[in-house]
């Protein structure tokens, strides 16, 4: 059962022993409060004996921040032998208003033969990549990895400027000039 009512931050939703806290809520001296503006939703627990979980979901898209293990979409800005710089434009399904900076270090490009990776055979500036955040990294950029099959380049233009299609996990072909370029491609979903 889910009763929807718009709640605002700080509003009391119930006591700690009544519900399990879901996203958009927090507990302070054993009272559950809302932490964002949104509709209150109560989802009954999967198996018996468990408390139902209460959560607040926002109408508009929630500006999410890249967290460890979140899948992000970004555009490759610069490539140097040690890492590729990526502008993160979307975290999961939601696009973020401002770009965050991430880097894919050469040792995180792929899982196999880590030390024989030539990064310019994997990424080129302007490619759109899907990657996973592995650490908050340093003050300037998040650390990303494409060491899984469904991660890597998902859109690239050939030298001729035509969108290319992947023909293997490390090759993409230009539809017009049929030339093959090397990329670390993501397996099409």
């Amino acid at each position, binding site marked *: 059962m889910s009763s929807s009512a718009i709640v605002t931050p700080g509003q009391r939703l119930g006591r700690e022993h009544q519900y399990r806290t879901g996203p958009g809520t927090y507990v302070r001296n054993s009272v559950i409060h809302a932490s964002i503006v949104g509709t209150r939703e109560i989802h009954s627990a999967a198996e018996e004996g468990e408390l139902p979980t209460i959560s607040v979901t926002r109408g508009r898209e929630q500006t999410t921040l890249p967290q460890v293990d979140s899948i992000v979409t970004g555009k490759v800005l610069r490539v140097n032998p040690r890492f590729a710089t990526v502008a993160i434009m979307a975290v999961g399904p939601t696009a973020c208003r401002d770009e965050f900076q991430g880097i894919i270090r050469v040792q995180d490009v792929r899982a196999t033969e880590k030390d024989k990776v030539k990064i310019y055979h994997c990424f080129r500036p302007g490619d759109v990549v899907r990657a996973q955040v*592995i*650490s908050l990294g*340093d003050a300037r950029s998040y*650390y990303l990895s494409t060491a899984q099959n469904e991660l890597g380049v998902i859109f690239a233009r050939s030298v001729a400027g035509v969108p290319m299609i992947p023909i293997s996990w490390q090759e993409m072909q230009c539809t017009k000039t049929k030339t093959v370029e090397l990329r670390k491609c993501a397996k099409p979903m």
Partner: protein
Amino acid sequence: MSEQTFVTPAEVVTSDPSFMRGHGTYQEGKDIVSAVAGVVEQVNKLVTVRPLRTRYGGEIGDVVVGRITEVAQKRWKVDVNARQDGVLLLSSVNLPGGVQRRKSESDELQMRKFFTEGDMVVAEAQAFFQDGAMSLHTRSLKYGKLRNGTLVVVPPSLVLRSRSHFHTIANSVEVILGLNGYIWVCKRATKAPEEMDPDELYANVNEDISNQERETIARVCNCLQALSKRLIPIDYTVLAFAYEASLDRETKELLEPEVIEAVTTEAVARAAMVNE
């Protein structure tokens, strides 16, 4: 030169060519000239001039107390009250799960799980980089993260180099006399480091401290401040005597100048008697 001669910068210390030039002096023609204002010290043929107040220089093997200022790639920067921040490498720290665990990739990413900015650490100087920065290590179990207490800062030149820098006072309070002038005063840990399980080693949780222990820690801190205000060299003996001398007064009275005067003079007198 048995009695202690005091020299000012540019005074000729000796012109006898057989002497070797040490710290605080420089060569001019065949004379050894003092570079700092301080006391001349001579060991066999080596002549050095020790300045009264200076930032901590540091020797290999020194026990120092430091505060983490920055977390960088595979290393931590540590403020040790010296000209430059010391460096604690990830490889020179013992990792949870015993000594033999190999440093893994994830350790590099989760540096902050061990030490983060502001943490206090006791370590030993193991080497110097060529830019003069001190390289620290905490591989032995008596070194590592500090908790259950507070920090007292005194001029480094006051802390005398001695056999051990870990002492206990009134068998409930532990004092770590860092040679760099950082002194950590805390409650004696009930669990020895060996018995600590891995994730407790770097936990940021204090043990419960009774009021009595808290009062003792405060008294020891005030005694240290008192000795430091009167520029009296600090070692375990003079500190213990100062502590005993202060027992008949309330802890907070130790902030008043007259009380400081009385307690420190008595402590120095009793320490001098013991040394003869």
